[in-house]
């Protein structure tokens, strides 16, 4: 198609300038909504990293009765070696277990006095591959002769709380973002409609002298694309800033490392792509509905 780049660039720029207030409104709405989308995406990734890190720290403790026989102990060892979920395991005998218990009970002198190495249960401390199966694995050991209790020890409560909070936060952020995205789509659509209206004389002359439909459409569609793209680039900048904030929070409150550059770039790319899609869809609808060529 013989659509000269010069012509299209000139027309698009002229259109944008003529409609600058509407264009600005559309661009800003795109920027705000996409920064929310981007921040939500960042947050989600950070939380997922933290959760997976916690999952790796999950341990299983199998407390034995203090009078467990050595045969019962070796049966437990067999069970442990057969369980694929368990990666490593150490056995704490009475003495080691007693030392550990003293640490745990340091703040409670009465309980500490009652404790002697002989009555302290011995314990197997095992690392699990993932947190998800921890309760199930723990259940295997419950009821085996000699076992006092299989106890999966993982920060279940804090993981759940964090997941719940971030899920709610994400849903809220995404809901706001979707509403704003829809309104930016409508704003772009309206901006293009105004542009079409402002240029109806040109358009009618173009149709008359035989300009092809695409030749007439392309400057308007490009205008929408530019609005979406500019808004998205602004949003990408804001997401960069919010990444700094998120990183600060991660360092301050969480044990995981900050988000790697690759994931950040990916997030920015997603943000820009969404902006482009919003711009193109908005202007396409406008061109279809209001430009009868």
């Amino acid at each position: 198609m013989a659509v000269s780049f010069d012509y299209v660039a000139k027309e698009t720029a002229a259109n944008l300038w003529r409609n600058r207030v509407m264009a600005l409104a559309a661009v800003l709405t795109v920027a705000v909504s996409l920064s929310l989308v981007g921040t939500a995406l960042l947050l989600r990734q950070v939380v997922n990293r933290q959760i997976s890190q916690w999952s790796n720290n999950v341990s299983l403790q199998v407390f034995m009765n203090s009078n467990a026989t050595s045969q019962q102990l070796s049966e437990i060892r067999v069970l442990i070696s057969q369980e694929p979920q368990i990666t490593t395991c150490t056995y704490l005998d009475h003495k080691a277990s007693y030392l550990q218990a003293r640490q745990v009970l340091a703040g409670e002198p009465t309980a500490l006095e009652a404790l002697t190495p002989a009555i302290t249960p011995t314990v197997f401390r095992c690392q699990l591959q993932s947190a998800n199966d921890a309760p199930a694995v723990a259940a295997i050991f419950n009821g085996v002769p000699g076992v006092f209790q299989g106890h999966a020890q993982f920060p279940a409560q804090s993981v759940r709380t964090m997941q719940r909070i971030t899920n709610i936060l994400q849903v809220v952020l995404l809901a706001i973002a979707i509403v704003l995205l829809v309104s930016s789509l409508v704003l772009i659509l309206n901006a293009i409609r105004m542009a079409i209206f402002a240029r109806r004389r040109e358009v009618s002359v173009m149709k008359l002298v035989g300009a092809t439909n695409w030749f007439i459409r392309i400057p308007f569609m490009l205008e929408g694309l530019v609005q979406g793209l500019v808004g998205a680039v602004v949003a990408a900048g804001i997401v960069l800033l919010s990444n700094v904030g998120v990183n600060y929070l991660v360092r301050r409150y969480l044990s995981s490392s900050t988000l790697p550059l690759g994931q950040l770039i990916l997030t920015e790319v997603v943000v820009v792509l969404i902006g482009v899609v919003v711009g193109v869809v908005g202007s396409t609808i406008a061109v279809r509905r209001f430009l009868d060529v």
Partner: protein
Amino acid sequence: MIRFDDVTKSYLTGIDALAHITLEIDRGEFVFLVGASGSGKTTFLRLLLREETPDSGSIWVAGRDIGRLAPARIPYLRRNLGCVFQDFRLLPNKTVAENVAFALEVIGRPRGVIKTQVTQVLDLVGLGQKMDRRPHELSGGEQQRVAIARAFVNRPLVLLADEPTGNLDPATSSGIMKLLERINKTGTTVLMATHDVGIVDEMRRRVIQLEHGYMVRDQARGIYGDASDTRVRGYSSIGVGAVSGDDDDLVSMPRRQVRPRRGRR
């Protein structure tokens, strides 16, 4: 060049805007399309441009049945049909040269070609000195010349003119007609819808008369009002444009030859 084959077109009101029109216009002809407002002249032109499609019958332009044209091909049809209107339809924010160049720009002509063709056609219409003026700085006649230049710059096969002199005084109109004649001499078919009795009577070209959608006259070297037709005579006597004489003169005029389908000039 142009052939209407039993063309009927009606709008939602159910009234036929055009009914059973069959005619042929050859390359290089100069044809007047006359008739009262609402007689179907504009529909005729809109059908040719394929802004409308006929309800029945077919229309051929340059050997193509334009009713069967794919929508994407319509722009290419219109490149062969230059268009001039009563209200000029120039772009007020562009200069004369830019207005004419616009017609070539939007069909993707290279810049060098545009420059030479625009200069050429503006010289042809006599506005070579006013290329950088804007339309509002020009008189009505000059604006219409710009519009004709824009319609003709792409060398169309046919020039369609919808009452091009409707807003102009008689002297200016005759200048426009001279220009259209000159364009016609280059081999371009000119089809002009008009109410201007003086012009039609003076030029003595082929006249096609429409009335309530029907073609009631197709006459070589015709005049605006046909003496044999009282309705038209009455219309002429209202005195649109330069009418010479009164009713009695018209009655006394000799009968013109009337042919439903015309032969060669």
